[in-house]
């Protein structure tokens, strides 16, 4: 019995003594807030058409398409004033959530974001599905211990707490769920890709680049006609997605960092070449939550070292040119 209790205690201590992934969750918070603002602003002029009371997607249609237990505050009233208030509240709360974080704002952000998404599900991109789930987990986490006003004091308070606390455990479990859900997404996406014939053939990128809705430039479509480039990108995508959950679990920091940076590069490509800006941003945010705090500290140290090295290489030549004293022609001749 004592051995069981000791094991349970070890588990509890592991969960409840120190908040983990604080930097990644803070970055996810910023990204979700920013992406929601972008989402609203992308079609700000068309807001009546997409979400308003006289939208083609009428309140009646939206209500019928709501899942069981689904809700949207936009469907509470069909008045123009309510719509404008709520739509602008989404923008304001997203900005506040991005800057300040905190549980109350996370909950408000979750309610408003879900409401906007359920008002018109036709204009969602897939990344929104992940954001809807992750924000629910974030309600239970500390997402403002970094990159928020008062973050330093908040961290000091957290450090001062002695012994295991339930709050810390709840945060860590929420952080685990964020990471688990993201890993599940990549594992599933990688699995579906690797079983698809066009992905095996390396032709998937060619077909994707030919879809008019996801073609931001003809150069991209032209490049994807290359068998070598197309196959390389297909295989790179499958490999990084399937490797993601294993890399996150890896004890070797370089594996975690390399895989995460690779997958973020992929999403940058999706943002620029396919025009899925909010989607790519949300995915990058989720990837950020999968790196540990020590990974970020190591990356920061590396960036500082790199900056110093570059500065040192530039400084001697700059210093020399500043110290040069102009020599007159007479001085030069006498020398």
């Amino acid at each position, binding site marked *: 019995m004592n051995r069981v209790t000791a094991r349970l205690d070890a588990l509890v201590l592991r969960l409840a003594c120190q908040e983990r992934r604080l930097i990644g969750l803070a970055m996810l918070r910023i990204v979700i807030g920013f992406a929601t603002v972008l989402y609203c602003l992308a079609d700000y002029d068309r807001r009546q058409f997409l979400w308003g009371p006289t939208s083609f997607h009428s309140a009646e249609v939206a209500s019928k398409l709501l899942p069981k237990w689904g809700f949207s505050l936009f469907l509470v009233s069909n008045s123009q004033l309510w719509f404008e208030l709520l739509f602008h509240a989404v923008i304001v709360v997203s900005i506040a959530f991005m800057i300040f974080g905190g549980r109350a704002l996370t909950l408000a952000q979750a309610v408003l974001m879900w409401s906007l998404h359920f008002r018109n599900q036709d204009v969602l991109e897939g990344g929104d599905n992940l954001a809807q789930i992750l924000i629910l987990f974030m309600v239970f986490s500390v997402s403002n211990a970094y990159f928020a006003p008062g973050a330093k004091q908040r961290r000091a308070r957290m450090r001062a707490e002695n012994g295991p606390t339930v709050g810390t455990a709840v945060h860590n479990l929420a952080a685990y769920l964020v990471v688990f859900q993201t890993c599940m997404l990549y594992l*599933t996406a990688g699995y579906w890709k690797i079983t698809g014939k066009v992905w095996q053939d390396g032709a998937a990128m060619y077909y994707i680049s030919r879809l008019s809705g996801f073609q931001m430039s003809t150069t991209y479509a032209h490049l994807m006609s290359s068998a070598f480039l197309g196959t390389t990108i297909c295989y790179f995508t499958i490999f990084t997605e399937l490797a993601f959950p294993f890399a996150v679990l890896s004890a070797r920091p370089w594996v975690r960092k390399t895989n995460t940076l690779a997958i973020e590069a992929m999403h940058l490509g999706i943002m620029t070449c396919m025009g899925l800006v909010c989607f790519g941003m949300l995915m990058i945010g989720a990837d950020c939550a999968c790196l540990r705090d020590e990974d970020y500290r190591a990356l920061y140290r590396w960036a500082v070292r790199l900056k110093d090295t570059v500065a040192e290489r530039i400084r001697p030549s700059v210093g020399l040119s500043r110290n040069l004293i102009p020599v007159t022609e007479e001085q030069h001749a006498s020398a």
Partner: protein
Amino acid sequence: MVPTTAPVPARTRALVLAALVPVVLFTAACVVYNAPASPARNRLVGPVNRVLEPYFAQDWQLFGPTPGDSVSLVYMAARMKTPSGAVVETPPVEIEDAIDRSPQDFPINPTKLPGVLLAFDETAQKYTQQATDIKKLPADQKAAAQTDLDKSFATNFLEMRRFFSAQAATLYPHNEILAVKATFKDRPIVPFSARYANPQPVEPTDPELETSWLDYVPGVAQ
């Protein structure tokens, strides 16, 4: 901060373990939910759906699809009354291509408008598939099945009716529009193996679904 060697208070232990239970349940449910179809998954998926839907519903097949091998096109025609009182029909105008290219107008934060037609294309595809299946049924079951099908897609067609009404009002602003009709077509993408062929093969455009004349809905935002 630092793990202590002192025994964990019983209340903390109980609360942390209680918090762990839903997390473990979610993990298990999520694995089953996302697993590929199998006899084992099929037995578990009922209760799992009840746990995860709607708030944790997820479909990551979107991230790893077999990409489409055709480009969807939507042709819209309008029936209008001229000032002389005559009723005329406009020739079908392709509207999807322009909407699909609208994100290029502002690539930094592109519009989500193409998603609407993507959803309509999907609806048209599903409806056509199910209507084709109905044609294979015995003659005495066809009418009832078709009625059920139309009923289940009524919401989607109402949405299309409103969308195409707004489009028609934009295209023909000074006319009295009576009805709109949409035709969904597919144009296959030049196959990968023929991408460098010269001249490029001309792919036929296949009609997928043609709606009936849908009554014009006035007052939809444009």
